[in-house]
């Protein structure tokens, strides 16, 4: 059973539909007790980092997620869920959950021809192998919509990058936590592959 964390930050239903399509049992929950004791967690989200962080704090989901992380629960972060696991986000200048040291940084000064947000399909280059990236091949593309990107302090936590003017991290991980900046749930068969890999990930 995968628990999808509901903190009023968009697109939970597309994640649920992807899991349903793959035949993977799942539930959506905003209850910190359920999240704390979940077997496996997907932490999705679209929207604004500071708003998302405030909702997490007010609901007690912030400490529930931290506890789940420290007790070894497999967690997959998606989009905002890949950004606020860092120590800090420039979007709304907010502290994050600090599960992976680093900051979430705005795309800027990358040349006038680059449009922000970075929106559309982009290829992902795997820089370190990881069970969740199994069967993802060079040149495979994922769907992105974002203006900020994760920049971990420890470069060994970066597993994949994409290129937008210059390379930037798109998949980061530490221990039982893995997170992707792109929307795996909207990235066709390749994205479903990644979600399936997460469902079968044994740490």
């Amino acid at each position, binding site marked *: 059973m995968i628990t999808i964390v509901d903190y009023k930050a968009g697109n939970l239903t597309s994640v649920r539909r992807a899991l349903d399509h793959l035949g993977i049992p799942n539930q959506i929950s905003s209850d910190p007790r359920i999240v704390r004791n979940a077997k496996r967690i997907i932490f999705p989200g*679209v929207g604004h980092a500071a708003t998302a962080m405030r909702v997490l704090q007010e609901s007690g989901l912030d400490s529930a997620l931290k506890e789940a992380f420290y007790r070894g629960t497999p967690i997959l972060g998606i989009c905002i869920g890949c950004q606020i696991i860092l120590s800090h986000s420039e979007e709304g200048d907010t502290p994050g959950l600090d599960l992976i040291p680093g900051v979430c940084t705005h795309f800027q000064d990358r040349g006038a021809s680059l449009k*922000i947000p*970075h929106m559309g399909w*982009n290829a992902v280059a795997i820089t370190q192998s990881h069970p969740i990236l199994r069967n993802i091949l060079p*040149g495979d*593309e994922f769907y992105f*919509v974002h203006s900020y990107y994760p920049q971990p302090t420890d470069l060994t936590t970066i597993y994949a990058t994409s290129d937008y003017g210059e390379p930037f991290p798109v998949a980061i991980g530490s221990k039982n936590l893995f997170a992707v900046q792109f929307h795996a749930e909207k*990235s066709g*068969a390749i994205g*479903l592959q990644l979600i399936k890999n997460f469902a079968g990930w044994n740490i």
Partner: protein
Amino acid sequence: MLSKRIISCLDVREGKLAKSIKFLETRDIGDPVVQAHKYYLQGLDELVFYDITASSDNRSIMLNVVSRVAEQVFIPFSVGGGLRTVDDCSRVLLAGAEKVNINSAAVKNPSLITEVSQAFGSQAVVLSMDVRRVPPTLEIPSGYEIVINGGRTPMELDAIAWATRGEELGAGELVVNSIDADGTKAGYEIRLTRMIAEAVHIPVIASGGGGKPEHLYEVLTEGRADAVLVASMLHYGEYTVGAIKKYLAGKGIKVRMTIGEDLRNSVE
């Protein structure tokens, strides 16, 4: 770098595909979900559904279509047609669409763009504009005028000015549909597309006039479009998404190549 997106649109009337689409397989008749799924498997990058239902009483049927598409089609899609309020937009987004497509309603009430973008983010707001070529005037210096109601009503509004205004108001993307080119299959309106692409900082989707893959190549290069809308080329079965992408890739355009439906580790 980002791939150039190939997008297709499906017209839906009371939950059924409008008749402009010719079907290759008889079992496909009428169901937009089946057609959308077919294009998804061919490697289409994004879909647009236009609800052309005449009566507003029957609009809830569209929500059912949106929800069924979202269960089977794992690429982004937008929904347009008859969206006049934030509540209208909220309903299609909650049903599973990533984006809403606003056209005439935004021209009549520009603040709608801002309201929807504040509620759901600018990435969720696609501003669609129908444009007709006219002799340049003081009001319309570019010679491209915004028209609404399917091209019937000229608005004395310059298309370039409306595009930049739309961006300022919070649109995340623009669909530039040339009424002159639409249906001709003689190629997209390159000059118009380029003028708009150079005037804004958000993605521009070219629409109207595509008849062969060369036309897509022209508008993605000379026209500086970020994405291109194809309709009859696909709907009449003349081309597949794969064939179009193969042509573009051969000409050096970066497009997304796909693996179809099967997961790579599903054979065990």
